[in-house]
């Protein structure tokens, strides 16, 4: 093939790629933002990707309420930390829904969210979940609890706690369950060291970890209850175990200082029973007591989807995120030190 022809082929390929991208982009924008005629308010939601469907269902219900009339949404979803940094760097947002409190704290530090955002009845949390152990269909290794994860032959995959903030829930659950069961901090460190000796992969995000597990990279995946339920709803065939002692996952939502007042009405609606019901359908635990819990497909027992574990501890029991990050994840913290020891011995 001559150079000219070569160039022509590549130009055509490049042009069609550009054209496809432009089409896709216009399709996205076109779907999200109809021209603003009188009486409509545009609200900007920036969030982490997992609760997108729940958010969309809540928005639909919100539109039927008097306050929600005429609200149109512009949404942006991605990794929680990336989304939070994008808002600090000027991405327009009225309401944010992140996976970690720290991602809202970043906005408070930047002066974008009120200091008292946690003063509400749920302390700023809009949905709950729990850390679970995902195993292959039929649980061939007979795993029942955390202690089974450090037995011979077990290969664990869990998202990378360094590059993904949300992955930190999993590591903290593995650590704190030792203490919840009466162990000392030294016991917990010893368990976590054994745990890391069984880690086969630390993929970039929770979804990547699920993919790696499904490809067969490991026989155990540490995940979140809602993630496991959602994957089973979309046809993935695996079992999950809610350990007797585990960590409660709390996902915050907040309204920005300069947001449209309708954003506050939306947050109130999210925290109403009607709003929480939509989270429940997607496998999240409700943050409002008495939320009616219907059948949740994908749960181990769809009729009783959210059994209460024997010992359910929270991040507050560990001293809050700020203390936890310094103690566990910063340079010289428990996790990097354990990784240094286990990584070098491999």
């Amino acid at each position, binding site marked *: 093939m*001559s150079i000219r022809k070569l160039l022509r082929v590549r130009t055509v390929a490049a042009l069609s790629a550009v054209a496809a991208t432009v089409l896709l982009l216009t399709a996205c924008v076109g779907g999200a933002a109809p021209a603003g005629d009188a009486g409509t308010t545009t609200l900007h939601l920036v969030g982490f990707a997992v609760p997108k469907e729940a958010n969309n269902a809540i928005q639909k219900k919100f539109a039927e309420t008097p306050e929600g009339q005429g609200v149109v949404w512009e949404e942006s979803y991605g990794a929680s930390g990336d989304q939070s940094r994008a808002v600090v760097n000027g991405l327009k947002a009225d309401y944010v829904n992140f996976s970690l409190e720290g991602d809202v704290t970043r906005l408070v530090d930047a002066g974008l969210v009120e200091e008292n955002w946690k003063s509400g009845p749920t302390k700023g949390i809009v949905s709950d979940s729990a850390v679970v152990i995902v195993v292959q269909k039929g649980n061939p290794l007979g795993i029942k609890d955390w202690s089974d994860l450090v037995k011979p032959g077990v290969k664990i995959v869990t998202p990378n706690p360094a590059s993904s903030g949300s992955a930190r829930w999993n590591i903290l659950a593995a650590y704190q369950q030792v203490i919840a069961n009466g162990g000392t901090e030294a016991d917990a460190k010893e368990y976590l060291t054994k745990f890391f000796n069984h880690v086969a992969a*630390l993929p970039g995000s929770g979804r990547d970890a699920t993919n790696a597990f499904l*490809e067969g990279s490991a026989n155990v995946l540490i995940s979140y209850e809602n993630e496991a339920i959602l994957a089973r709803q979309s046809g993935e065939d695996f079992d999950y175990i809610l350990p007797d002692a585990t960590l409660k996952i709390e996902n915050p939502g907040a309204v920005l200082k300069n947001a449209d007042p309708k954003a506050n009405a939306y947050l109130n609606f999210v925290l109403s029973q009607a709003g929480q019901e939509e989270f429940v359908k997607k496998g999240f635990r409700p943050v409002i007591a008495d939320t009616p819990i219907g059948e949740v497909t994908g749960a181990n027992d769809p009729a009783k989807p959210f059994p209460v574990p024997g010992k359910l501890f929270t991040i507050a029991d560990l001293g809050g995120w700020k203390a936890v990050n310094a103690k566990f994840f910063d340079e010289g913290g428990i996790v990097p030190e354990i990784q240094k020891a286990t990584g070098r011995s491999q």
Partner: protein
Amino acid sequence: MTPSSGTVEAQQLVPTPPAGAATNAGGPRDRHRLRRTKSATSLTPVSALGLGVSLMWFSLLVLIPLTAVLVQASAGGWSAYWDALSSPQTLAALKLTVATAVLVTAVNVVMGTAIAWVLVRDQFRGKQLLEVVIDIPFALPTIVAGLVLLSLYGPSSPLGVNWANTRVAVFLAFLFVTLPFIVRTVQPVLLELEHEVEEAAASLGANQLTTFRLVILPSLAPAITSGAALSFCRAISEYGSLVLLSGNLPYSTEVASVRIMSSIEGDKLTEAAAVASILLVVALIVIVVLDLISRRVARYA
């Protein structure tokens, strides 16, 4: 246009050299040098405008962002910089990244040149298809590349291997995303290369190896080294294809870009910029070394 007519066209464009291989290989470079001296002394208004626009464009897109990285890296002073780089985990990641990128580039130099040679000099069925397929690693989003490589070399591999979460996976991922560079830089040069020169060398008694070493290689050297530089730089910055494939295990398969992501997630931008600036310096050194090698080899002619 058929491949052979392309070669004919190329031959017509370049005047037939009067004598043997040596003068031909020296010719274009001398002309190039002459042109450069001339333009350095006197700029026409048009070329001055061109230079201005190019520099402005380059500054906005490359120089200013690069400076920003360096400024960010030095924001916490030397001690913060040193702290970031004295972390054994970061050092291990940097070592793995650079060593694997060097290895991958070396493989690409040989294989890329060989593939370009086959594409230009040989006629075979499916050649057109291969031409198109070569560029796929450029077009594929790297996360998709990671998925493809995982199903090919991972636990459910049809080849019966399991290289997921090992350093072999890092090597394969780098290899996959950098394959096209040397092929695409060498190919056009090889197309322009004249058969007569090789025939002349042969008639003067050179065997095939000598012809390749003394006639073909010096002409290809600049293309190979610039392709190698691109390939190296692409490899040290790779991230997407590794998040699924390499397992990101600290001290084992974690690469520098994952360390940078971790620093950003921890809101330690100085640390991230420090690691990035080390990658920049390494890339610069490699580019200079490759350029020196290229000049050395070209001097054979």
